[in-house]
């Protein structure tokens, strides 16, 4: 098959235009205005939220977010800084909420005497929050709002 050079030129220009338009679109949002083939400047670091005021959980199974700074907190084989406040025996002094009973359960639902190994690395599930406006908005709707729409004023 052969193309006339004119058609080939038009096709090339079209392809180039469309990809550059695409690139323009992809590069907005999270990436900012930096083109795809370049590395943009790093965004400035934002401070961690440190009010220590509990945040609403979006659903009952959600690991609550950490409402305080955890900078420099060590969690490894040697020790667990979180447990120095959140362990059962520490909460009188630290005034922190105790890790709930689920943290003592092994995978068969048996309660152990100490924190279950699968709950030792707290930041697997619990994350601190940064004081910043999220680049992508969140349109999550919690179950109460859903039910409210279906049966306004129903019992929850």
């Amino acid at each position, binding site marked *: 098959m052969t193309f006339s050079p004119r058609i080939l030129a038009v096709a090339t220009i079209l392809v180039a235009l469309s990809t550059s338009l695409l690139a323009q679109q992809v590069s907005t949002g999270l990436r900012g205005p930096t083109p795809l083939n370049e590395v943009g400047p790093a965004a400035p670091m934002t401070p961690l939220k*440190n*009010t*220590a*005021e509990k945040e609403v959980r979006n659903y009952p199974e959600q690991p609550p977010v950490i409402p*305080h*700074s955890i*900078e*420099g907190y*060590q969690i490894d*084989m*040697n*020790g*667990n*800084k979180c*447990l*120095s406040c959140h*362990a059962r025996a*520490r909460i009188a*002094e*630290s*005034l922190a909420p105790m890790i709930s009973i689920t943290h003592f359960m092994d995978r068969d639902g048996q309660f152990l005497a*100490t*924190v279950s190994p699968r709950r030792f690395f707290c930041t697997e599930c619990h994350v601190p929050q940064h004081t910043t406006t999220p680049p992508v908005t969140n349109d999550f709707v919690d179950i109460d709002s859903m039910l409210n729409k279906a049966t306004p004023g129903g019992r929850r």
Partner: protein
Amino acid sequence: MSVAGETKPTKFARVRGFVVDLWYVLIRPSSVFGLGVLVLAGFVAGVIFWGGFNTALEITNTEKFCTGCHEMRDNVFAELKTTIHFSNRSGVRASCPDCHVPHNWTDKIARKMQASKEVWGHLFGTIDTRDKFRDHRQELALHEWARFKANDSLECRNCHSAQSMDITKQSPRASVAHQRFLFTGDKTCIDCHKGIAHQLPDMRGVPGWQ
């Protein structure tokens, strides 16, 4: 080869003779220098000696000296670099001697005497690899905690004073904890702030940890 029994008396006699001569020179009033000159000379010698001693202490009291040993440089110093005491928004930093050598003169000498043990440890390699350091780490940390506990965290307080803490400017957890336990004198900094400058050792058995 000489027989010990033959040389001993003569050597002993010579030494005794020297000491006796020296003694007479020392107690005889000077016929050459005046008393004032002698007192002045003694004073100058004292200043030089004291100054030299002081300078030696000053040199050993720097971070450069401490990190001259790879045991200190590769372990504790490397870890310090990631903490707030190495770099922060205020640009004020804490160096090893700020936290580890008391600024008080007598304590300083006492600490230096203890430090001779470290030179021994360096020569005989108690912690000359990362693994050996890890194995010994709890013991070393326990020494330091005991020291901070005994002196009511003196070194921390050289920079941070409880009196100058504005709790309204502190984070909520900090202001509550400091009011309940620090200002009342129930606890001292190191009770709550372990591992602020280096990584923690094995914390099993340390009160408050598990």
